[in-house]
């Protein structure tokens, strides 16, 4: 995506951004812990915010960093709302009944494991895991998201990789 000139909210710029990064925002929200049933509303909220703020986007960060930060705020808001109306949420057992054919798919299993691991992380490490290890943002972009130097990103990512591998082994009852 070419960066939009500051102050412009051209429909084509929005549309281009949407079509190139919709999946990215959806995945990010999912990894950030937004429940499956709430994802359509959450991703919609992200893109409404993108539309509202696009004209003010100055291009100082990459689009993906900017979109991720909007997704992060949306996920936080969603969690706050979820706490307020916990009783109204769609219970997981209804949202996802039984294993089904998809659940047997390798990708689903990997996703379930990753999400389980993400649950064990605090927000900064979760953000780093998602942005760097899953979404492949650059160290500079991740550093910008977290307010740390790229060199610190490398160190933390290395620790996260080790931590995830160790966690997977423990999850399988094997010592690393």
């Amino acid at each position, binding site marked *: 995506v070419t960066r939009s000139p500051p102050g412009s909210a051209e*429909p084509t710029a929005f549309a281009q951004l949407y079509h190139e990064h*919709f999946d990215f925002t959806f995945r990010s929200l999912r990894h950030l812990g937004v429940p499956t049933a709430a994802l359509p509303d959450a991703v919609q909220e992200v893109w*409404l915010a993108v539309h509202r703020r696009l004209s003010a986007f100055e291009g100082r960060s990459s689009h993906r960093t900017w979109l991720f930060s909007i997704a992060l705020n949306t996920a936080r808001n969603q969690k706050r709302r979820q706490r307020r109306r916990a009783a109204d949420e769609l219970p997981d057992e209804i949202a996802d009944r039984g294993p089904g054919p998809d659940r047997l798919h390798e990708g689903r299993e*990997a996703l379930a494991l990753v999400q389980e691991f993400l649950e064990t992380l605090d927000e900064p490490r979760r953000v780093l895991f998602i942005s760097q290890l899953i979404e492949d943002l650059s160290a500079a972009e991740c550093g910008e998201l977290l307010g740390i130097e790229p060199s610190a990103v490398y160190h933390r990512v290395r620790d996260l990789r080790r931590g995830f*591998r160790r966690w997977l082994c423990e999850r399988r009852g094997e010592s690393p």
Partner: protein
Amino acid sequence: MSAEHEPSALNALLRAERAGDEGAADSALERVLELAASAAGPEPLVRAQVEHALREALGAGVTGAVAGTRASWLRSGWARAGSKLGLVTVGVAIGFVWGRSPEWRAERASEPASASGPAVVASPEPPPAVDSARGATPVARPDHAVASPAIDVSVAALDTREATASGSAPSRAHAQPPRATRPRATRALASDAQSNDTLRIALEQLRKAQLFLSASEPARALAALDELDARVPAAILSEERDVTRALALCKTGDSARAAALAARVLARAPDSAYALSLRESCAGQELLVEQMRERTSNRAQ
């Protein structure tokens, strides 16, 4: 997670860890992460539903609260029924709306929020007995009204296909309601509205049937389907009707009729999205028994 379902990439990772092979473990880890990333993406139906809601919100110049209502309704209606069947049915409705001409969509988008009600909007109150059984009310959450912004922009904002096809950026002029300059579209709207009503009724009745089915009230589910048959031509959502009826018949113990319906659906659409549900139901078992009988009989001959 049982061992036989362990992802192969994960197995590779575990093997590499056991062998102390850092490089192989890292490669396998990358594979696990790639798989997770690809599985985390949106399903086509979710993408269509969000895209539709955004088009409605951004194109109509209405508040985001309405957009929130759309997505919430889509989720709460069928998803609360806890059924893949329902989601696919709503997908049909979205496809129905989505497949309309740009003029039609622009016309719909220019209407006031309260009046813009294609098939996916109306949310009939579920039957009280089902409500109490489920303990949930499928309505939009009010806090979206606070969280969502007011927006007034062109419906073409999301129309990349149209924009790129023409090779020029849509101008703000596209945001103007085309009503005055498109009498043909206006006329078409009347017949579209009628079609929408029919589809809306079909969706309402199917949803009722699904809710009754989820609440283990198959007789009432069948009654809702009978009412649907009486009010809406058989061609509309015929597959969904047959599947729902087959599942309801299973719950009443009428496996023979359920199997007949299932056979009809599977004959028409062997790759039906509902094939698994049918095969896992009593109808599927009945069909298997029949097939075995046929094979035995053929061998005997």
